[in-house]
């Protein structure tokens, strides 16, 4: 039994390849059925997002990657393996854990992938079994740990979200606040959309050309205003976003000072995302005015990016720990069929030998015969107890698979993949039960 992942991602496959390899939710079970009916796999999960398509499979005895590549190549209409990768066992587990933690994402630390991994698992549930259920459970747990124990997912990574992060640091939440946008261009629109998404209650769009302000305001349910009408409103807004195409500063100290004097002590956050700048830098000197320009926002983004990079080693150590835990469980699983077979074989020997002995002891009363049978059972159980415990423990602590093979050899057992699969199926229900809680 081996866990493998076969797939392509943004690291090696261009967008047009990834687009063609995307599986819709309806295709997933059919894809896994095909791999299973070919006899190559016992379990499977398909993870298909805009940045990756990956098949997580539990192989039978032979390599399932060829069948997986054949399937992907068929969908692509060319050789998909040229763009992709195959990872096995621990590496496959570590890969999924990194994916679920956002470490393998285009934007390192992004949180969306965690939900996508969960969805992929849910959609593939009819074809996943004990091994992959546990793997995906562990991946989601690992993703949660990485997010809570490191800063990998913290901090804005775009100018827009950095602006929101800064504004939140002043106001807590932007819900219910008032904003004004100067300008009606593309950047102004992005900024407006961003703050409205944060729950800003009322927004004013002011522009030199009123008609353009009106178009933008109508699109977003804001209020359009001429510049001249907008300046008095500065006393009432909490957030001023400036993004005009003006070649010189249009917001000077006097204008803001006049507004601030009417505002009492309420803070005013000014985000100047125009180039050249719309706001005179001297405005920053005014009390309760917080002025940030593009360089400041880029500084926030850059600091956040650096911090995320610095968190990678800490995240890697969490992943290593969780891979170890998962692999101990997998190895423990490998011991189950051997232990079962060993016990069955020994009990068969006991029954045979006790029957032969009783044949020679015909004069025994039924009570005495029971004692002999009980003796046989008791001795066998006692002899088997320690090897069973040690086999399971050895399998679980990493020395396992060699010890399990040795046991097979020493006791003349032939525990096949089928037995493993049976035990896996037996655990499947338990795992599913856990995962839904």
């Amino acid at each position: 039994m081996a866990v493998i992942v076969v797939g392509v991602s943004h690291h090696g496959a261009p967008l047009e390849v990834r687009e063609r390899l995307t599986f819709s939710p309806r295709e997933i079970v059919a894809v896994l059925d095909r791999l299973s009916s070919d006899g190559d796999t016992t379990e499977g999960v398909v993870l298909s997002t805009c940045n990756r398509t990956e098949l997580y499979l539990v192989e039978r005895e032979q390599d399932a990657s060829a069948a997986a590549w054949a399937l992907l190549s068929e969908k692509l209409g060319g050789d998909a393996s040229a763009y992709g990768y195959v990872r096995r066992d621990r590496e496959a587990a570590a890969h999924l854990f990194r994916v679920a933690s956002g470490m393998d994402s285009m934007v390192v630390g992004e949180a969306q992938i965690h939900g996508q991994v969960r969805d992929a698992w849910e959609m593939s549930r009819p074809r996943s079994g004990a091994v992959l259920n546990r793997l995906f459970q562990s991946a989601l747990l690992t993703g949660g740990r990485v997010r809570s124990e490191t800063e990998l997912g913290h901090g804005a990574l775009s100018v827009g979200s950095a602006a929101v992060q800064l504004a939140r640091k002043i106001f807590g939440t932007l819900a219910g606040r008032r904003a004004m946008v100067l300008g009606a261009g593309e950047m102004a629109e992005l900024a407006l959309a961003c703050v409205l998404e944060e729950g800003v209650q009322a927004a004013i769009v002011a522009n030199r050309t009123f008609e353009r302000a009106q178009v933008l305001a109508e699109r977003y349910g804001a209020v359009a205003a001429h510049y001249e009408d907008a300046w008095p409103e500065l006393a009432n807004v909490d957030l001023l976003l400036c993004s005009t195409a003006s070649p010189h500063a249009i917001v000077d100290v006097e204008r803001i000072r006049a507004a601030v004097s009417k505002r009492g002590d309420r803070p005013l956050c000014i985000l100047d995302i125009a180039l050249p700048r719309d706001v005179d830098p001297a405005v920053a000197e005014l009390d309760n005015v917080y002025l940030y320009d593009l360089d400041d926002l880029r500084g926030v983004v850059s600091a956040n990016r650096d911090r995320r990079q610095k968190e990678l080693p800490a995240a890697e150590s969490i992943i290593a720990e969780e891979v170890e835990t998962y692999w101990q469980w997998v190895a423990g699983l490998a011991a189950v069929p051997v232990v079962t077979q060993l016990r069955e074989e020994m009990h068969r020997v006991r029954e045979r030998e006790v029957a032969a002995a009783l044949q020679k002891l015909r004069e025994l009363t039924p009570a005495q015969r029971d004692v002999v049978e009980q003796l046989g059972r008791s001795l066998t159980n006692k002899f088997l107890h320690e090897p069973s415990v040690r086999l399971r423990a050895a399998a679980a602590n990493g020395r396992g698979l060699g010890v399990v093979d040795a046991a097979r050899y020493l006791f003349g057992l032939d525990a096949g993949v089928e037995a493993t699969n049976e035990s896996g199926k037996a655990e499947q229900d338990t795992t599913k039960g856990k995962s839904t809680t």
Partner: protein
Amino acid sequence: MSAIAHFVAITCYIGAAALAATPFARPVGAPVRGVAAVLGIGIVAHAVALMAYVHRVGQLPLTGLGPALSFAGFVLAVTLLIVELVARDVSLTLVAAPLAAVPVTFANVIGMAPSVAPTGARGLWLVAHIAPSFFGIAAFATAAAAGCMYLLERRELKSRRFGAIFRFFPPLDTLDRVNHVAAVAGWLGLTLGVVLAITYSVTYRELSVPKIIWAMGSWLAVSGIALGRIAGGWQARRAALYSTVSFAAVLLLYVAFRVVESNAGGRFL
């Protein structure tokens, strides 16, 4: 018993502050539950210490410098925990927990010796005016702690340095609200305390000029900020600055009276 429990409480207060400071050493958020739990254990230990004191001495820890300081630290820690549970933010622990630990440590250094406390109705009057006064001072200290943090964070935001304070302190608005609530609560507590103290002094003809000056000074300071916030529209930097400076002044005045009174052979609070 009281000394051991006090030691545990002090350790927990310092430990909670250290835990709240972890973001400054390592770029992860402070463990909110951990900080609250350690602070909670400290409060329980402190309560045990005070109960042991009451059991041993047979009077509430409100008279005598040591016991009063310990009780003040206890009230501050409890206020801090309540504020943090409501605000769901533990960064205030950074400033307020050491502020609670210092008087408790001082109390144990000078000794938990009670002064002769009046009994009967007079004793009840005494308790009735000291308890709300302590609550008022604790709330005032919380307002000052929030104000201090506001000023630190404002400085970082204004100077466009986005370091640990920027990342791990709560938003300015949250600190401003904590300052507002704590200042108003402090004013209510101290007003009640001062009114009852005046009634007590007049009824039992026990007048101490330094005590009156300090009590009125504290009351005026906290009234200034509460009034400013409610009627004058103060908020943000002005409120933060005023509460920090006025609380520091109240502390300094206390120390000054202590020094002067002990040099003169008297006793001040």
